[in-house]
């Protein structure tokens, strides 16, 4: 099992099978919506996992990049007359550039300074989005144009399910392949020992910066997808609470595990939906389940499960 979790072909194939089969088990398109939300959140948390699990840095303002992506697809078509997909690309570029500018001075320092810097950055971005109401519609948000690809308007729950699923597959594939690239190997070295990595000539600051930019681009694309899927954006998407949610997905699923990010996203998206039957006790139950999960599965759900299975053999 542990070996299998490292086999990227098996992971992507299993994911593809799950994505392909799942819709046939759904009684209504509400489930498609929930699944699409899982895919989009998973996409963002995979990116964040590259930063947290591999480079060992925390971003507490990651929703800012999510928000930039979301608002780029809102503002691009509405104010600048750009097509939605181009806005998605521009949003990703802006997010990457901002991450570079924020990360470059900070990641030269040792320790968790990035967490503090991103915390401030996240608050700033949310503030700008809330106050620049001429562009962003202010605290109440703004509508987003539907995505059109080659004259085909993507609006149905099915279309979004397949599109978000395809993006997730692609995102997981790239993140998994990262392990075999020079960057990925250097990240592994960094993860094991920063000092040792530095001694063998790895540019530690540059590497962390690269991971941060990758994470920002992933979040931005996820934000763009969610905005177009919802047809509406508001500043909550860039808010601190959303940042915490993204970090929780990564930690709950398992640091450094790509499958873990998907599982973490699935749990955090599906659980509140499943718990609505408890009405006012919903949040209490949600908190309780997360605490129990973190106490008994300290490494996260997926690494813990694979350890259990390995020891059972």
């Amino acid at each position, binding site marked *: 099992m542990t070996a299998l979790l490292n086999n990227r072909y098996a992971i992507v194939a299993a994911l593809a099978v799950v994505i392909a089969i799942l819709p046939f088990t759904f009684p209504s398109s509400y489930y498609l919506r929930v699944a699409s939300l899982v895919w989009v959140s998973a996409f963002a948390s995979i990116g964040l996992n590259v930063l947290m699990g591999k480079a060992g840095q925390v971003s507490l303002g990651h929703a800012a990049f999510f928000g930039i992506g979301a608002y780029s697809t809102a503002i691009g078509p509405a104010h600048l007359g750009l097509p939605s997909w181009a806005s998605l690309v521009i949003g990703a570029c802006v997010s990457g550039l901002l991450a570079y500018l924020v990360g470059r001075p900070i990641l030269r320092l040792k320790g968790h300074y990035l967490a503090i810097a991103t915390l401030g950055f996240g608050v700033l971005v949310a503030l700008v989005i809330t106050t620049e109401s001429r562009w962003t519609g202010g605290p109440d948000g703004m509508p987003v144009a539907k995505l059109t690809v080659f004259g085909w308007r993507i609006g149905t729950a099915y279309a979004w399910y397949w599109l978000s699923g395809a993006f997730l597959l692609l995102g997981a594939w790239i993140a998994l392949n990262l392990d075999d690239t020079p960057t990925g190997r250097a990240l592994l070295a960094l993860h094991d020992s920063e000092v040792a990595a530095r001694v063998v000539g790895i540019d530690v600051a540059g590497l962390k910066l690269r991971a941060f930019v990758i994470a920002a681009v992933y979040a931005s694309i996820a934000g763009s997808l*969610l905005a177009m899927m919802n047809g*509406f954006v508001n500043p909550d998407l860039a808010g601190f609470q959303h940042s915490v949610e993204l970090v929780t997905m990564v930690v709950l699923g398992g640091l450094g595990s790509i499958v873990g990010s998907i599982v973490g996203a699935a749990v955090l998206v599906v659980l509140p939906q499943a718990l609505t039957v408890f*009405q006012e006790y919903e949040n209490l139950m949600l908190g309780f389940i997360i605490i129990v999960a973190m106490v008994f599965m300290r490494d996260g759900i997926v690494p813990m499960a694979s350890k259990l299975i390995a020891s059972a053999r």
Partner: protein
Amino acid sequence: MPDLNQFNRRAARCLLGFSILGLAICGPAYAAETIKIGSVLSVTGPASFLGDPEEKTLKLYVDKINAVGGVAGKKIELVVYDDGGDANKARTFATRLVEDDKVSAMVGGSTTGTTMAMIPVFEEAKVPFISLAGAIEVVDPVRQYVFKTPHTDKMACEKIFENLKLRTFTKIAMISGTDGFGTSMRAQCLKVAGNYGIQVVADETYGPRDTDMTAQLTKIKNTAGIQAVVNPGFGQGPAIVTRNYAQLGMSATPLYESHGVASKSFIELAGSAADGVRLPAAALLVGDKLPDTDPQKKIVVDYKQTYEASAKQPVSTFGGHAYDGLFILVDAMKRANSADSGKVRDEIEKTKGFVGTGGIVTMSPTDHLGLDLSAFRMLEIKGGDWTLIQPGS
């Protein structure tokens, strides 16, 4: 082929896991002999002061309606989801109501943010949606399936300006909150000020969590020729403005608050500084002080007593909006004698002379709110209580 075997097992495990999750979100099945009305409200979170009385009101009155036989011979089944004030969650619950619960209509959407996020779902599914959110953009431009019950911020501005005009004031200052409510109302006030010959000579803002507005108010105080100050705001901000206003000795200049502070907690927070403050509000706040000839008197006194007896907390206008929404919908269902979404929509649009807590509602294809300025009463706070101002003052 150990790898492939393991892979198959893994895939099976994944599928099993997902189907368990799938089962978990399947609600229990209900009998078809009910009319389903859906609601997504912000019962918890920062907007719970809206969602909580709304939920209590809906549950209370649905039970009452069912106790006397329901609508068109069928009982109402109310499905409520709590979005916690999160627009993205609201949107998912809206999809759930439409696709999974298959509701006939929806009364809900506590905030403008959640309402705007849910509108596309109901428009696409052609299910009537009566919103409980304040901003005018919910019904302007008019959307086929979207209605709302609360007064708009534009009406509040007009009501205030009408009163200012009566007192022959033309130069005013505005100090607005930068939250959703304040931003929207400030924009509406600036838009309609000209219609009443009113000039906004000072325009200040404050953040929703600011704890002192002395600086902005001092600036207003030092602007020459200001005859009145208007404060479009919500929550505790306006209470601080009111306190600072008195501390700076500005009370000689009339201060107008918005309908957003129309709750007893505002008077408690602002204390004696609130004396003499004017604001537009729904009849519900002054139910017992209305003359007996007032057409709304019976409804608002009834609602106030019923709600307070059941919820054990003071009535708020927000719960009143839910009351109006529910009964506009139920009346439309009775007239249509059906729960068919299309027919109900047509009947909601034909609502005429409906007496609610918010005012007298007459809708049309171009007006999905149906209230005019008479829905607002101009109140003045005196001795820690609301009073109706004398006509013409």
